[in-house]
Every structure is written in C-alpha cells, then in structure tokens.
C-alpha cells in the first residue's frame, strides 16, 4: 500500500490529537538523591514500573541498575518479571554514603526490544562530623520489675541481693552488671519511681554505665503530669547529686510513644519544663528529647507537629523512635536491619526519616526501642504481621536480627544508636495472655538466663554465661524490709546495719551482704523508702543499731517466696528487733 504523503500529513495530525501517547511501561519514582549527600545520611529512591499493555508480557523484563561505588543497596523486583496488565514492580535503591565523592545510579529496563532509562541519578558525597555520643551507642532497655505477674519483686524495684567489691548491692546493680558484661554501655529505664531511679543511676555510675532517664509524660496528659515528672526529676537529682547525675545520665526523654495529634503543645511544654528543671539543678547540659512510635517520624501524619516537637528538643538530643521490623513481619531478620530497600527495615526507616522535611542532617537518630520477640504471638498486641503473612519469633531470629543490628549501629555512616528492647522478659506485661509476644522481647529471660545461651543476642559474643548471673535464683527468695518504729522514725532513725548470710540455692554461690542504712528523711517514701532485702531459705540475719551497738539475730526460712522468721536473739534486751510477716521492726529507743 502506498500513500501520497501530502494527504497523509493531515490525517496523521488528526490522529495524533485524538490519541494521547502512553508508555507501555510507565515509571515513577519516589525519593531522590540530593545533589549534595553526606556521610551519616541514608537516601532511598524507589522506581515503580507499571505495565499499560493490554496483554501479559510474553517475555520477561530485563532490569539493571548500574552504580558507581559500593555504597548502594539495591533490590530489583522487576528483573525477570512478566507483568500482567496494570501490574507494577519496584526497583529500590538505597544510598548510605561511606565514601566521599561523586556517585551515580543508572537504571535501565528492557521490555521486548524497547529499553527505557530514567535519568541517571548523580550526587556528590561530602564529609560530615557526626555526634560520637550517639553514633555507635548500643544500650538496652531495662525494667527492674521484670518478673512474672504477681511476683513480689515487681512491687518493689530495688532490694539488696548480694555483695560486690565489698559492698552490699541491689538487684539493679547485679542486673546491670550482667548487662554491662553482655556488652551494653547504657540503659534506659521507664515507669519507675524515684528510689528506683536513684538506685539505677548510682549503680550505673558505679559500673561505668550511662543512663537514659525517662520522665513519665503520658500521652494526652495534663500539666499536672508534667509538674509531677519535674518533681520526680528534681528528687532524683537531689538524691544522687548533680555530679553523679550529669556524669551518668546522658539524655532525658520527655516520655515515650506519647505523641498524638492533639497533644503537641503539651509535649513541647514538657520538654521545655524538663530542660528548665535540669538547668535549675545545675545539669542543664544534659539534652532533653523524646521517643516516638516509628510511624510518627517515618510516615508522619503531621510533619509540622514533628517539626515543632523537634524544635523543642535540646540541640544535642538525638531523634528517638521505636522501629520494630519484627512487628511488620519483615524477613529475613538480618535484612530487616540492613536492607534499605526492604520496606519497614531499620535502614528503610532511617532513610524515610532522613528524607522528612523536619530532619536536619547530621542529627543522629536513636532507636530508643527495637527488638525481636523470641516467642509468642502477635495476636494480642495487634501486630501487623499477625494478620499479614505471619510473625516470626524465635531466639535464632532474634539473634540474627540483633547481630545485624549491632553491626548496623557500629557502622558510623549509619549515624545511629540503639537501645535494645529489652534486657529481660516481662511476663507481667500481659499476664492475661501468657503467649503474647510482648512478654518475650528479652535477650535474657525473666530469671536472667541468656536465652538458649545464644551470645549472638548480645553485643559481646564472648559473654560468659557462668560468670554473669544477674538475678538468677532470686525467685527462690523472698523480700523482707526493716522499718523504724520510734516516734519520728521517718526522719530520725539512726543508721542500722543489716547483715545477711546465705547461699543462692540456684547458683550455689554466696548471696551474703552487709548493708549500712544511713539516717534519711523518709517522709517521701518514693524517694527514701525503708530498705528491702532478699533472703533465701535458711538465711541468717543480723540487724545492728549503729548508735546503740546492739544487735539481734535470727534465721529465716523461705518457701514459695514466703519468708518465716525464727526466734530472735538480741545482744541487749533493751533493743529488741521484732520480725513478723515480711517486716523487721527496729527498736523504738534510738537503736
């Protein structure tokens, strides 16, 4: 067939205006690599290719990504695909610059004989100074009340349990000692009262650990909550002293996972008031920030709220969030950390946060919580993974995840730190549903046993499970307290010494200790309660008054965590100590 061109031109013009050109395989891109990138930032670009063909592709796509440099992570889901009509595939390219200089990415996709190539991405990586206080930090979330629901230990966070370096020490000391040996350098605790904070900070200070202090700022709370949190903070600083507080506490969180779209002013006020409290106590250099659920930063509903909140943070405070790839069902566990192109992985979360308008490089981003449940189901906590492909709890998966996580954090260019969730299982979180995965995030179980003795759960894979026992065997003991009885005892009780001689029946190691309790103003029992002591079966207890020099001794038996005192033998009948129930009452007469 031949056509005279002069006539065809008009016909063609008509046809061209009637039919819009369409890509058989269209593409779109989300994210970008800015012209100037920096070490410490992550960048994510996702190409989506969509078939507009009216038939399924007869042959597969050939999709390639060519890059310069080794700083890219690429997931190519398009290569080898035969897209059916309307279907899409993604090519995800992550950039975590570790080296300086120019970098390029070129994507090409071939279908049939046609090869399309979106514009080549280019960027130049510049040097950045990162904050070593946060970059590479590997800490752990630690709650002292990690025992089974109903266990008496959960009712009192601190009790004396043994001896270290010649001094009687508490459960928090023993547990944090175990955590330090495991390779953690900082602990974050939460939802605890003054006396527990005081003990945690003092113990951490003695152990050379750092503490992330978390004020109780509940979601949608009131100014009264802030006032109360400030009061607690003041009490804690006053008790441990500004020097110990400032050398041990490296960050104050104004609550946790407490943002809602109606409480931003309240949150910024909380940050501001906590900053003022620190300043007035002479520790104003400690930064104040907060920690958010991951979605608040990764896919913010209100970037302006996040901007306002971050603006309220201290300049040296990291952004804190709680990413949980486990709860999204991201697999495999190591890729759930490092594969930036894997949605809801840690690296993906970082790239998404760093792409937000409120993020200013090179602010470090701290994972205030992240972990991998070792057992249980996501049903009760409503995890996404429960109804979308499954959750994959196991010790092995947790170990793989955490090993990758430690590597990720140690890679300076990731500009990250982490507080692993968590040190010990907390079966009391959801006692009504014992199989709730929320109960199984510990790297140690509730009794301080390293799960499966798998040291890959820990930053220190050389951790000795036989030398660092933490709270092992404690649940075979029971608590007793010693209380003053003289008028005004809450302020005038003379110092007294409690000497406990015993063996931990589980470890067969000495659990003896001698503790001198000084005179304290115990008006506020949240700050200075009467001390609690752990006793095992057949323990020998001697209580001595420092002022009187008199002492009383007894033995106690413990069965099923119920303590029973034997007959008391006192050196001076004028200073009797009477033990009954779980309490030993000091003499009323200036003991």
């Amino acid at each position, binding site marked *: 067939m*031949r056509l005279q*061109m002069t006539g065809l031109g008009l016909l063609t013009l008509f046809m061209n205006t009637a*039919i819009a*050109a369409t890509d058989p395989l269209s593409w779109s891109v989300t994210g970008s690599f800015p012209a100037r990138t920096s070490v410490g930032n992550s960048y994510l670009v996702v190409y989506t290719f969509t078939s507009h063909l009216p038939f399924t592709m007869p*042959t597969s796509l050939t999709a390639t990504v060519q890059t310069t440099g080794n700083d890219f992570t690429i997931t190519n889901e398009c290569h080898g695909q035969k897209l059916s009509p309307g279907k899409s595939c993604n090519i995800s390219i992550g950039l975590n610059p570790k080296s300086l200089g120019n970098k390029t990415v070129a994507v090409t996709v071939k279908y049939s*004989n046609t090869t*399309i*190539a979106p514009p080549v991405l280019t960027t130049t990586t510049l040097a950045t100074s990162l904050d070593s206080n946060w970059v590479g930090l590997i800490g752990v979330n630690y709650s002292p009340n990690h025992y089974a629901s109903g266990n008496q230990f959960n009712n009192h966070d601190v009790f004396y349990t043994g001896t270290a370096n010649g001094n009687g020490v508490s459960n928090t000391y023993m547990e944090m000692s175990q955590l330090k040996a495991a390779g953690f350098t900082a602990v974050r605790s939460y939802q605890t009262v003054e006396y527990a904070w005081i003990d945690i900070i003092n113990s951490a200070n003695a152990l050379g650990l750092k503490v992330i202090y978390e004020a109780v700022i509940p979601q949608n709370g009131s100014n009264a909550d802030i006032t109360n949190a400030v009061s607690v903070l003041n009490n804690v600083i006053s008790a441990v002293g500004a020097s110990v507080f400032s050398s041990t506490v490296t960050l104050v969180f104004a609550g946790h996972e407490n943002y809602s779209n109606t409480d931003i002013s309240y949150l910024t006020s909380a940050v501001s008031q906590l900053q003022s409290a620190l300043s007035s106590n002479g520790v104003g250099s400690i930064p104040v920030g907060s920690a958010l659920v991951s979605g608040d930063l990764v896919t913010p509903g209100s970037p302006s709220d996040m901007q306002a909140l971050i603006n309220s943070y201290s300049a040296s405070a990291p952004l804190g969030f709680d990413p949980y790839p486990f709860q999204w069902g991201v697999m495999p566990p190591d890729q759930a950390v490092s594969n930036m192109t894997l949605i809801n992985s840690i690296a993906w979360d970082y790239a998404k946060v760093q792409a937000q308008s409120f993020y200013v490089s090179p602010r470090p981003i701290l994972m205030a919580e992240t972990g991998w449940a070792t057992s249980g189901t996501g049903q009760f906590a409503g995890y996404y993974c429960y109804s979308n492909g499954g959750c994959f709890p196991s010790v092995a998966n947790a170990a793989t995840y955490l090993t990758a996580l430690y590597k990720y954090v140690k890679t300076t260019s990731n500009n990250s730190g982490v507080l692993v969730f968590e040190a010990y299982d907390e079966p009391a979180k959801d006692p009504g549903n014992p199989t709730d995965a929320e109960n199984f995030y510990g790297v140690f179980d509730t009794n301080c046993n390293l799960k499966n003795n798998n040291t890959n759960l820990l930053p220190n894979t050389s951790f000795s499970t036989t030398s660092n026992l933490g709270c092992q065997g404690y649940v075979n003991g029971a608590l007793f307290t010693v209380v003053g009885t003289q008028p005004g005892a809450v302020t005038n009780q003379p110092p007294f010494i409690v000497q406990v001689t015993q063996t931990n029946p589980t470890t067969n190691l000495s659990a003896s200790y001698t503790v001198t309790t000084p005179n304290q103003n115990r008006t506020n029992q949240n700050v200075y309660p009467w001390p609690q002591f752990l006793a095992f079966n057949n323990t020998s207890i001697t209580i001595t008054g420092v002022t009187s020099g008199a002492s009383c001794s007894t033995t106690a038996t413990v069965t099923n965590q119920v303590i029973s005192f034997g007959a008391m033998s006192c050196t001076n009948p004028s200073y009797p100590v009477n033990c009954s129930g779980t309490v030993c009452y000091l003499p009323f007469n200036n003991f």
Partner: protein
Amino acid sequence: MKKLILLALLSVSQCGFAAPSLYGWYVGGSVGGTSPIISHQSVVRNDLDWPSDQYRYHDVSTNALLALQSGYTWSSCHCWFPSYTLAASYTYVFPSEIKGRVRQFSLPEFENYRFRYNVQRQTFLALFKADIYRWCNLMPFFTVGAGFSLNRSENYAEHALDNVTPRLSPRFGRKTNASASYIIGAGFDFIATRNVLVSLEYHYGYFGHAHTRSGDEDFAQQKLATKLNSNTILLSANYYIGC
C-alpha cells in the same frame, strides 16, 4: 476541398520548419524537483511473541535534483515523430527527510516516538525519448527509461512524544543499496538555437527500495525499508555537438 486535403498530407509528411532540426550527439543537464512517494509504513519485529512495531511514515520532503545525460538524436523533417533519442543519464537527488511515528506493538495508544531519517538517491538510466510532433520549435515527447538506483538511508533519529519515556534509539545505520529502476514520462522539447534543446519534463519513477542498516543491539536483526517512487519535474538543456 481537395486543396485542404493536400495540405494536410503535406503536413504529415514534411513541415516547413523555422529552425533546423537538432540531431547527433549531445550532452545536457537538468534541474528539477521530485516529490517522493514512499511506503505507508515499515514493520519492525519485536522479541518472540511480542506484536511488531509499526514505523508509520507521515511525511517526506520534496527535493531538488540534478541530472546529466548524454545521447544521440535522430531527426527527420516530418512533423510527426520528428526525432528519437537514446541517452544515458545520471541523476542525483538531494536527501529527502522521511518523518514518521513509531507505533509500538501496532497499538494506536502506543504511538510514542517521532522518528526521521534521510534517503538520498542516485539513479543511472538508459533513456529513450520520442518527440511526437513538431509545431514550429515546440515538440511534445514521451520518454521511458530503465536502469538502477543507489539508494542511501542514513541519519536515523527519534525522540519521544510528550509524556513518553525516551528509549534507547534503535540507531538504524547508514546503508546504500542498489535497486532496479524505471521511469515513464512526457514533456515538451523546445529548439532554442541551432545547438540547444530545452525541455520541460514530468516523469513518474520507480526506484526500488531503500533500506537502513540493522539497528544496534536489540534491533540487530531489524531495519527500516521503504519503496521509493516519485513524481518529478525536470527542466533540461541539451547541447548538440556538431549541428
């Protein structure tokens, strides 16, 4: 009446010419314009089981041409068929730009790329021309010719329409191919001087096919092809040697 019939017979057999007939060897040159007629489309096959692409030609430019010829003319004093010429000619046609659009997979919604390339032709023909009648110095003629053409295709380029992603060009390459050719035409000769014959000619020609070289990589087995026909107007001047 008899006188008129006699005059008519005389005019058939012999005319009284104002100028002498031109005969013998001559050389000449022509200038003109040609309007190519090309194929509607070229089909380029895709990978296995994919529908082919259509390269739909929408436009081709009209171009100038130059021609040289030399031959021999036999003349007579008759008014009818006063002369016959045999000649050889060489024609150079300046490149024509062929434009069109690529319809991917032969689907109208995927008419996505504009393309263009050039076709340049050189034609060698043996010509026969017969003047039909001489009226004073003006002689209508018809001509036919046969020979071959060297058709060169080159300079393929394409670009995407709006909202369409550019693709890697097939880069169909330059190629010259020879094709049998013929023309058939008609015109008028005018005896300008005792040595010069001026002609105005139209002819329709067939010049075979023009092929590109195969494309790069994914188009290594594919090429663009079109038939070449044309309508041509020529203005010629022939110089007779020794008249």
